[in-house]
């Protein structure tokens, strides 16, 4: 069995994978995988998360470089907008006859 030392020498870092499909508008986070560097991460992502479909854009970021917001701050980020309900299309009552809107 491998000892601690070899395990850490052969341990591959974790990468987060973001994919934008052919018809897509944004890159979506699809999961993670292990790779030694960005080039391999992209190749691996192509094999694992796209099954080598063409026309797909892949972003890879080493997991340790992803910074995330703290969930209990989310309240302060998003609550104010909840007051501004007039931003939401369903706020407005419009006649049924009106089309294309």
């Amino acid at each position, binding site marked *: 069995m491998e000892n601690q030392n070899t395990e850490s020498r052969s341990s*591959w870092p974790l990468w987060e994978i973001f994919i934008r499909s052919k018809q897509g508008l944004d890159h979506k986070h699809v999961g993670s*995988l*292990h*790779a*030694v560097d960005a*080039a*391999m991460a992209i*190749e*691996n992502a192509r*094999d*694992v998360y796209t*099954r*080598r479909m063409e026309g797909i854009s892949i972003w890879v970021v080493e997991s340790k470089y992803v910074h995330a917001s703290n969930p209990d701050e989310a309240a302060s980020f998003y609550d104010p907008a909840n007051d501004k309900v007039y931003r939401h299309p369903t706020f407005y009552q419009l006649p049924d006859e009106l089309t294309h809107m």
Partner: protein
Amino acid sequence: MEQKTLIDYTLHLADNALVLGHRNSEWTGHGPILEQDIALSNIALDLIGQARNFYQYAARLRNEGVSLGGARGGRMSEGVAATGGGGVEVTEDTLAYLRDSWDYRNCLLVEQINGDWAKTILRLFFFSAYQYSFYQRLQQSRDRELAAIAEKSYKEVTYHLRWSSEWVIRLGDGTEESHRRMEEALDQLWKFSGELFVPADYEKVLAEKGIAVDLTAIRSQWEERVDAVFRQAGLTKPAAAWEQTGGKQGRHTEHLGYLLAEMQFLQRAYPGCEW
């Protein structure tokens, strides 16, 4: 005799792809890391797909030949007794599963056993570099079917070549152990690389007709590519070895017999069945 020659050539291409695809698929479930297990299985699938295209074409040629009246299409090889005359149709499976090793026309390189990851990678690199230049040319074949298969396959082997090149470099220029293993792999496989560029008779005949690829035209491209990758990998080509040949003519190493015995077992043990 042209029909038989074309069939022989097509089978040679099919056998190459099938045998290497089969070898690579032996790694499924046993790869050094999950991500690479998936990658190599993808490559195996591509190769088997290529094989199927070629086998299906060869089967069509064979069946057309028979329907044109007996001997002209000829038996595509001495070994296929099961396709006895009449209206028995030949399929991709008949060709893959019912020919013995003396009728297989793959080059010796692809039937070598997997060994370790280094040997598998090097074998794939040598063969992908060959297929890359080969399919590039075959796209211009006067035979439209071969050209079409080449076009589709070319995209796939572009990826195989890049993937295997990167691994040759990683292992060649990785650790002392990986470098040593690459050298051992080189030692074992180099002598099989020459056969890729030695045309069989059916290749010579068809190359003149613009159907088959002229191997002399792609040899230097292969050597350049190998040199470039080896430079980055810190590997040196061995001194000229006695080139092993014969695969294209059905004279194989001991390995193919075992490979086919395993692959063909069910079809042989339960003849004439649908699966």
